């Protein structure tokens, strides 16, 4: 990993003023990331990120919020249970929250579509963003989805368009925003709610453009090659941090978040508060432009 970090420094990538910040952040965290992860280690992150006992959004809400009022419905067609939205009291602040919710047992998983949102879910989220903006509530988002729901109605209702609109709604917010990938950060369904001032990622979460299985099916024409695919595109937290995609890594209890929900929640809570405090320091009138600049820096190319 140190090699790659060195390479990152040399390339004309992550350009502009953000680079130094990113690098120093990287430096601070690199001690924790012991070594270049092997194929097995990356696959372990994939498995942990999808672990059936991993805490979900509502598990964290229950532990981190003093009071939480869930909000429902897109005001047009339905309430999408794959995306939980609400307002509440978090560490003595009032905040708005949007998070994917996979569901614990098979019944709930099916009801929540395994955390795969429909356009109506993102529309509900945008409604809560408006509410946050109107009342000056910072916005927290928790990302945990295999991806947006790939069905007929979801497509017909404009899945692509609403993922785009949810992102630009986050881009336009004047309030501080913090996102954290707490499990699977799956492609468009994930970035729909992850365009934030600060983006965090739990140590065993993954964040990726496509599922390992999907990637394997396309590139190797063999879904069985998922492990190999995962090793190739490295959806693990250390890689995302190294590439400047996330700002910091949120530690998990030994063995992973599923081993101790309370401890995982405490660590997440501390990280969210720190990021929120950090994001709140920016002059509100400059926040939108700063947020744009952050995402502008993402990418690697030569000029």
């Amino acid at each position, binding site marked *: 990993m140190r090699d790659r970090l060195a390479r990152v420094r040399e390339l004309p990538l992550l350009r502009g003023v953000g680079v130094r910040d990113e690098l120093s952040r990287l430096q601070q965290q690199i001690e924790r990331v012991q070594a270049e992860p092997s194929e097995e280690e990356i696959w372990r992150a994939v498995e942990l990120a999808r672990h059936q006992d991993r805490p979900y959004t509502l598990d964290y809400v229950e532990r981190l919020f003093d009071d939480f009022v869930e909000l429902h419905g897109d005001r047009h067609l339905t309430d999408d249970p794959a995306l939980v939205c609400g307002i509440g009291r978090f560490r003595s602040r009032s905040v708005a929250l949007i998070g994917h919710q996979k569901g614990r047992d098979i019944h709930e998983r099916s009801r929540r579509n395994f955390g795969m949102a429909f356009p109506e879910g993102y529309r509900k989220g945008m409604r809560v963003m408006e509410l946050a903006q109107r009342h000056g509530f910072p916005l927290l988002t928790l990302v945990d989805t295999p991806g947006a729901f790939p*069905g007929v109605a979801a497509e017909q209702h404009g899945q692509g368009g609403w993922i785009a609109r949810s992102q630009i709604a986050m881009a336009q917010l004047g309030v501080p925003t913090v996102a954290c990938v707490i499990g699977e950060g799956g492609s468009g369904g994930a970035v729909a709610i992850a365009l934030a001032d600060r983006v965090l990622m739990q140590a065993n979460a993954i964040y990726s453009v496509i599922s390992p299985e999907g990637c394997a099916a396309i590139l190797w024409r063999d879904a069985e090659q998922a492990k190999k695919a995962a090793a190739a595109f490295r959806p693990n937290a250390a890689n995302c941090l190294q590439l400047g995609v996330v700002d910091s890594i949120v530690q998990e209890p030994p063995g992973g978040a599923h081993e101790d929900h309370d401890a995982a929640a405490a660590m997440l809570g501390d990280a969210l508060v720190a990021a929120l405090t950090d994001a709140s320091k920016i002059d509100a009138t400059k926040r939108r432009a700063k947020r744009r600049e952050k995402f*502008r820096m993402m990418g690697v190319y030569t000029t």
Partner: protein
Amino acid sequence: MSSRIDVSVEQRGSGNAPSGDPGGKAGHPNTCPSCQSHYRDDELAATYGVCPQCGHHFPLRAHERVAQLADAGSFAEDDAQLRSADPLSFFDVRAYTDRLADAETTTGLGDALISGAAHIERRPCRLAVMDFAFMGGSMGSVVGEKFWRACERSASDGLPLVCVTASGGARMQEGILSLMQMPKTVCAVDMLREASCPFIPVMTHPTTAGVLASFASLGDVAISEPDALLAFTGPRVVQQTIKGEKLPEDFGLAESNYRLGHLDAIVERSGLRPYLGRLLAIFAAGSQQ
């Protein structure tokens, strides 16, 4: 999100080729996949790459598109020197760097999007055009950065941006960074909005996945060519989720998107330039009010 569109749809029609195939022209780029008519290059050029028999819109290369839309000699390309790096040292059955080199050789392009200053119907604007021939029009760091710069120049000049899309989605080989081109290009559109610059994407076949789910859907006006596949998830993958059920006939196509409220207009290729000219005139007058 797939970095390729469904082959089934990409090549729709071609499976219906008469088994005879006189002259072995099926699959030839100048053979119409809908009606099997075959054309010389100059014939297709004269019809904007539209089959005179059945109206099929053949894919256009980026420079052909520019020639059709921009006033003669007005296009001045920017950022042509940008090239992808290989942040993951990505290797599937081939190295990403090899794929890039091949694509550049084949297409003569540095990546899947070109952009520059242009005039359309005597109205100054910025014009960006994607090319599906370059790795399926997939969006990696270079596409994202070029789009960002096009927006930045539009905003600083107070000019509209017209962007013709054609993309299978994210450039998987750049891993998570390709996904990040979605919020990046969305932020670029936000910059345009803050500057009150019109943004007019023209969606062509295919505009899917990460491109549809980012800047392509954020236009002031939503326009498509006929028959284009515009879907976040393509029909092949959706078919898997619904098992035996039958997909609607025109699932994901421009016509169904129009009917379902996602498009302002479907514009035939020959009418695109005047249509854009009208829009630019309306927006230009608006900005002087």
